[in-house]
């Protein structure tokens, strides 16, 4: 893979640096893109797509703690609110709380591995979908709780894949293609 070769110490790395703009903008852009992505591939009659924006946020937070600031949840949640169909402010509040609680969890359990990350993300996704269901019910769209369960299972199973994709983007983010001097 060319990206891989660039990262390992080949001659093409010398006097090259990653672009700071891409390095810092990538997580913001990917989360915002993932927020509007689930609506595009199909016009669905039931909630079936996983909440990709939220999962991408979790994945970035777990892969690179500190890269997204704690307040990023509010800004990115606002973007998600524009596309998600939930009443405005839902993702803004829930994503902010997520970022703060993730910080607390990280301080309490600093040593992590794949399984604990998946478990933590699974709990967050389940809580997020459940609260989203409650909010939708209170704003006039009460649906049977069983309709959200398949979506939760899909999201839970898809989370490692989202994490992998975020990992790929992270590698691309830090590629050294800016020639110095």
């Amino acid at each position: 893979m060319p990206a891989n070769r660039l990262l390992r110490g080949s001659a093409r790395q010398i006097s090259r640096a990653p672009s700071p703009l891409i390095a810092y903008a990538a997580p913001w852009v990917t989360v915002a893109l993932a927020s509007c992505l689930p609506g595009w591939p199909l016009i669905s009659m039931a909630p079936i797509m996983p909440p990709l924006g939220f999962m991408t946020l979790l994945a970035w937070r777990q892969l690179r703690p500190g890269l997204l600031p704690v307040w990023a949840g509010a800004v990115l949640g606002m973007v998600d609110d524009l596309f998600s169909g939930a009443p405005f402010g839902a993702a803004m509040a829930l994503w902010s709380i997520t970022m703060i609680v993730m910080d607390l969890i990280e301080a309490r359990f600093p040593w992590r591995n794949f399984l604990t990350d998946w478990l933590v993300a699974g709990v967050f996704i389940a809580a997020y979908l459940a609260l989203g269901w409650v909010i939708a019910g209170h704003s006039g769209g009460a649906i049977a709780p069983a309709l959200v369960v398949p979506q939760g299972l899909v999201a839970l199973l898809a989370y490692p894949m989202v994490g992998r994709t975020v990992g790929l983007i992270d590698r691309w983010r830090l590629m050294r293609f800016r020639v110095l001097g």
Partner: protein
Amino acid sequence: MAPPGNRRPGYSRRAHNNIFFAYVAAAVGTVVGGALLFGSMGNTGNFASLRNLASDVTQPAAQLTAQGRSAAGGAWGVAAGYFTSGPENARLKKEVALGRVQAVELAAVKQENERLKAMLGLTSDTPKPIAFGWLVASTSASARRYATISVGSLQGVKSGMPVRTHQGLIGRVLEVGLHSARVLMITDPESVVPVRRASDSIPAFATGKGDGTLQLRLLTLGINPLKVGDAFVTSGSGGLYWPGAPIAVVSSLTRDGAIARVLGDPAVSEMVAVLPAWAPGDDPTLPPPADPVKAKADADAAAKAAAKADAQAKATAAKAAKQKAAQ
């Protein structure tokens, strides 16, 4: 994985402040988000302009994927057609032969219908679509059922207009952007459509269940006369939805109505037509509304009478007071 070391910033006061203010900003974000959420709970139309701006901005990309989706569906249909073409062809030939006969009969009926309508002085009630567009996106990850269409106020779309595919009603326009609009689909739990059974006009309400089916609730309680397979069309009562648009077919019965499968499945057809909102006043078969001038005159007369009565009461009260004073 080792814990990150960025939680202890050393002696730098600036680094301490940065961490502190980041937490403050996150807390403020939570509070502001909660307040906005609380504010838009009752009124989901809040921040519609922001949403419309966002859908206008993402509309080209969404339309591209919609066309790709449609092409992929078509390609799949072509590939699947190779395996079933033989029997399908024979069946279709039979259907066409039958259809030709029925078309002739239909033309005759139509002509007769037009003649009768002309005799009664009725005008045709088929709406002329305002605009045609694509279903470009939907809220697939949410419990709510909204869709985005690729036409907006520039094409003459206004809030409240019904949207349909060639198969049936999809929903109504909720918020309008410049070249995109947000549609509340009939399968959303908030949507209520007045319907009637196509065969004998039993009235009912169709409410979305959020999973692609509708809950039909009959207006008349008692014995449930519905059967599986009954077709329902919009009744047009109350306006908004044009009467006679096919909407759903009963798939199972409940105690006070039925569960119905939606006919205009948006996953099948992505081209939609936006129709003008229907006002019941446009229907020439209905009696005309009360004359506003006469109604106003009536109201004025009533007010005058009330004032007169009031004045009389006052006069008698004053007389009584005078008499009291004289005594």
